Structures are given as C-alpha cells and as structure tokens.
C-alpha cells in the first residue's frame, strides 16, 4: 500500500544572490512496511528531501501526498497536527528534551495527543522495554549514552503510532556496537510490526540493512534499488 508519493519535488534555497538547487524534480513512492535508506554524499539533498517529506520544510515546487493528503495544502498548524499524528522523527543529534526523563520524553508526544496519563505511562514503558531501556525509564538524557539516547528517540518516534518514521542519519554519532544495536531494534520493529522506516544516511551499516536503497546526488535520484 502506497503511503508516500512525491511528485516532481524541487527545492531551491536563496543564499544571498545565489540560488542553491537542493532537490531537483524528484519522483518517489514509498510503500507501507518499507525499510528504505536514502544515501548520498553530504550536500546531496537527502536531509532536505526528508525534511520536506516530514513537512518540516516547504518545497519550491512539486507535491508530497501522504496517505492521500497533499501536505502542501495544509496550513502551518494543520501541518503540525499532521506530523504529530502521522510521522515519527529520529534525528542525528537525538534531540531529546533534556529536562525530561526517558519515560517522560516518550510520553510527551502522547501528552500532546491528549492521551490519558495511564495510557501514556503504560505505552512509554512498553516502548522503552522494546528498545531495551526498561531499566532506564527514569534517567534523564544526560545520564544516558548516545546509543541509549537514540533508542529513546526511536521509542518517542513510535509513541504516537505514526504511519512512518523518518530517521535523519540516526547512526552518525554512534559507535559500532550502538549502531548495530539500534539497527537491530529498528529492523525488528519493521519486520514484526510492519512499521515503515525511511533513513537518510551515508553509513554503510545502515545501507546493508536496508531493503531498498535510493541514491541521491546533486538533488537527483541516481539509483533506486530494491534488494
């Protein structure tokens, strides 16, 4: 089932008098349950593409249709709501809320969704156990390693039961062991719960795990290989 459809997507940044064409006419379809890596060198446009799919940035031209909704037609506050209900994010720098514990970080998005306290707590603990952090639910981010923080970020991304998860270079700051651990968790969630993952990465370990690899360079898709 098709959940994301990108049509003729273009993004031009204006830096002073210079126009930077970050994404050039990309067409792309992502199906439910995919485990897809978008790869390419730095500055190739993969993060820009991910940001636009996630509704964090507006395309200069083109359409992004998610679950039959053209997100370009949504107002800013509708788009924020849309993100909360449909998209999970995992960032390179973890981006956890430093004043909240691991459990509270996971609960936070459910709080925004208006879930009850009990439902929030139960799901947060369940998700943290799934990512192997059942023992660290009350630890603040500063007390967790990079790998553990990224696993909390994955649990947070899953908390809102999104249609798909966008992970922007999720392993860039992790060591080998943490990377392997995180990838195993995400692969398991994809396999067992059919959760769609889309990564931007240039980490070979992620590419090896991915079942579909889309290579981007200079804002264009150079190859799209399904293993």
């Amino acid at each position, binding site marked *: 089932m098709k959940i994301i459809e990108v049509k003729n997507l273009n993004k031009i940044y204006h830096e002073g008098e210079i126009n930077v064409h970050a994404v050039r006419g990309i067409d792309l379809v992502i199906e439910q349950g995919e485990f897809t890596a978008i790869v390419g060198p730095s500055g190739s446009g993969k993060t820009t593409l991910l940001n636009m799919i*996630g509704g964090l940035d507006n395309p200069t031209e083109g359409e992004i249709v998610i679950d039959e909704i053209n997100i370009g037609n949504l107002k800013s506050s509708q788009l*924020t709501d849309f*993100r909360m209900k449909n998209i999970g994010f995992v960032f390179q720098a973890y981006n956890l809320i430093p004043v909240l514990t691991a459990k509270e970080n996971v609960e936070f998005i459910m*709080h*925004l*969704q208006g879930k009850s306290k009990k439902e929030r707590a139960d799901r947060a603990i369940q998700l943290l156990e799934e990512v192997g952090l059942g023992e660290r639910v009350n630890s603040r981010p500063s007390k967790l390693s990079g790998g553990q923080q990224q696993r909390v970020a994955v649990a947070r991304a899953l908390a809102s039961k999104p249609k798909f998860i966008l992970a922007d270079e999720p392993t860039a700051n992790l060591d080998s062991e943490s990377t392997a651990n995180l990838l195993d968790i995400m692969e398991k969630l994809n396999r067992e719960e059919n959760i769609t993952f889309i990564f931007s990465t240039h980490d070979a370990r992620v590419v090896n795990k991915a079942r579909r690899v889309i290579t981007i360079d200079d804002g264009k898709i150079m190859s799209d290989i399904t293993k």
Partner: protein
Amino acid sequence: MILTVAWRNIWRNKRRTLITAASIFFALFFALMMRSLQIGTFDKIANDIVSSYTGHIQIHQEGYWDNQSINNVFDRDEKLEQEILKVKNIKAIVPRLESFALASTGENTKGCRVSGIIPDVENKTTKLKNTVVEGNYLTNNDQGAIIGDGLAKYLNISIGDTIVLIGQGYHAYSAAGKYAVRGIVHTSSPELNNNIVYLTLSNTQELYSTENRLTAISIILNDNGDITKIKKKILKLLDENIYEVMAWDELLFELKQLIDSKQDSSTIMLGLLYMIVGFGVFGTIVMMTSERWREFGLLVSIGMKKIKLMLIVFIETLLIGFLGIVFGFAISLPIIFHFNKNHINLTGDAAKAYTDLGFDPVMVFSNNPDFMISQIYIVIFIVLISVLYPILKLTRLKPAEALKK
C-alpha cells in the same frame, strides 16, 4: 506536563534563574519599603490633620477659603445640618467659627488662630479632649479657653492665667475678650500647637459679633471612601451661590502638592529601578530563547503547536517573576507590618525638619494592600513585555532551520 517542563526548564541554569529572580526581589523589596514608608507617613500626616482639624470636607460661605475674613460667614442652619447628616457615609458634622486675633498676656503677644467649637461635638469627632495635656477640657457653657502648648510656652502662661484676645470682628466691630486658660493641648500638628486658641462657639460668636454665624461646617466621614461622590451629594443640598464645598486635599492644597511631588519623584526612581530590572529579565529571556532554539524546533517538529510552546515560555518567565515576588513579599511584609504597628520616632535634625514643616516627627509604614498589589502588576507587566520577544520570534520559527542550529 507543561507546568513540569516549564518548572524544570527554569532550573536548567540555576545561577541565571536565581540572579534574575534576585534582581526582581531586590527591586520589589526596595519598592515596597519605599512606598510603604512614604504612603504610611504621608497618610498619617494627612489623617492627623483631617481627623483632628480640617475634617474630610468643609462647607464655607462662597469665597471664604480664598479670603478668610470674619465677614465671610454664613447663618447657622441646624435644619440644613440635619439634612447633610443624612448623606450616606457621613459620621458627623462640626460647626465652627474661626478667625485670627492677637493673644496677649501683657508681657508677650502673638498672632493666633481662634477656633470656636461646640466642645461635646468637637470631642466626639476629633477627640480634642484626648489632646489636653494639662488642665481640663472645655464644657459647653465654659467662659474659658484651651490653648496649644507651643503658644502657652511662648506666652509663658499656665492653667488659671488669663489670656487677652484682640482682633477685628464682623463688619469692623472691634473684637476683644479675656479668657481664663482652662487647659493646654498638644495635637499631632506642631503648627496648630503653636497658634491655636479654642473657645466655645457662643463665646467666639460673641467675641467677633457674628451672632449665630459660622465660618465652616467641618464634615467627618466614616472612612476615606469616595469623597468626591459625597461632596457632590452635599452640593445638591446647598445653594452654590451662597456656599462652597471643599475636600481635604483642596483645603490642604500645599500638603497635597508636597505629597504628590514626593510621590512623583519616587515614582521616577522606582521607574528607573524597574527599567533596569526589566532589562535584566529581558536579557535572561533572550538568552533562554537563543540557547533553546533547536529544542523549540524539535518540539514543533514532533507536533507541538507553537501556541503551546509560547505558553511554556510564558509560564517559565512568569515563574521567575513569581519567585522574585514571593521572596520579595516574604521578606518585606514582616518588616512592613512590624513598623506599621511600631512607628519610628525621629530624633535630632530629622525630627526638627519634620516639625519645621508642621508635621509630627514620626515615620509610619503603610500596610495598605493597594500599593503592594500595584507592585505585583508592575513585575507581571515587566514579565509580559519581556516575554513578547520569544513569542514574536516563535511565530517565525521554521522547524527545519531551527533544527540546524
């Protein structure tokens, strides 16, 4: 959860939060002390004069206040007095005939203010009897006089001695009389102590040949309430061509001006102080916003509405303000209430300066909640102004750009 996040956020940089809250605390403490002392002391001065002498409102013959001549008198109308008494919030009315005379004991002579009073009525309202420090208070048909202690000292007279009053009576009649000193009073007004001579109203009317006429009806209210409203009601009962009605702040215009000018200068000082504190709070907010811009980007990315984010920032700023307010009041209130009950008696040059101005040399702290609440409003106003910056900035937040920071 929003409150939890806000509360924990303000403690992310403990030192900065404490310094900001402390600056609010010191400003508030200083403002509360200064205002309390100023309002308390000036209120006491005004209340002393109002309650012991002028009353809250006075009725005169039209033009009397500008030209306080014995010729500007009006016929006493007891029926009218009863009508005035029916106006809500009026406690009492005190008829008086007042003029000036020379007081002499043979050796010494001094200009004095002669006040003709009905002793019982006067005492019920202004508690004049309580100010008698030597001798006795006047009886209603007394032929004697009571005088201020400053005047008694100047004239070098004591109880039982005779004082001679010489002046000009109604329509240029000569006014002369001699009166035995029955008592000596010490009021809270040094000016009054130095020049007042009280006689019974009938004796004064006889002295000045005014028959049953008065210079003033002094009106005492139950509380300071709405004097302007009551003044209007009284005016409706009177013929404005014959009478003038004046509130205490018109009667004591110079005192009112002095109070207002002192308050204006302290308002400027406090304004500057609050402005400095305001910049401090603003600086903290700017730093907090700048440091957490990426985090704001994240929160909006994962679905937090900007309005909720603004609410968090607003609560954080308000919490810092409240910390300052709570500590400011916790330290200030016991001091204010202590010195409200225990007045500070001035001595030396300070006391002399007060006495020279005609005031009781006492400093009083006011515990009136109005001025305290207004300080809270000021702090909240500072917080509201400071929080405008992050709120306006948040309206322009672009999550993708913020996440790059």
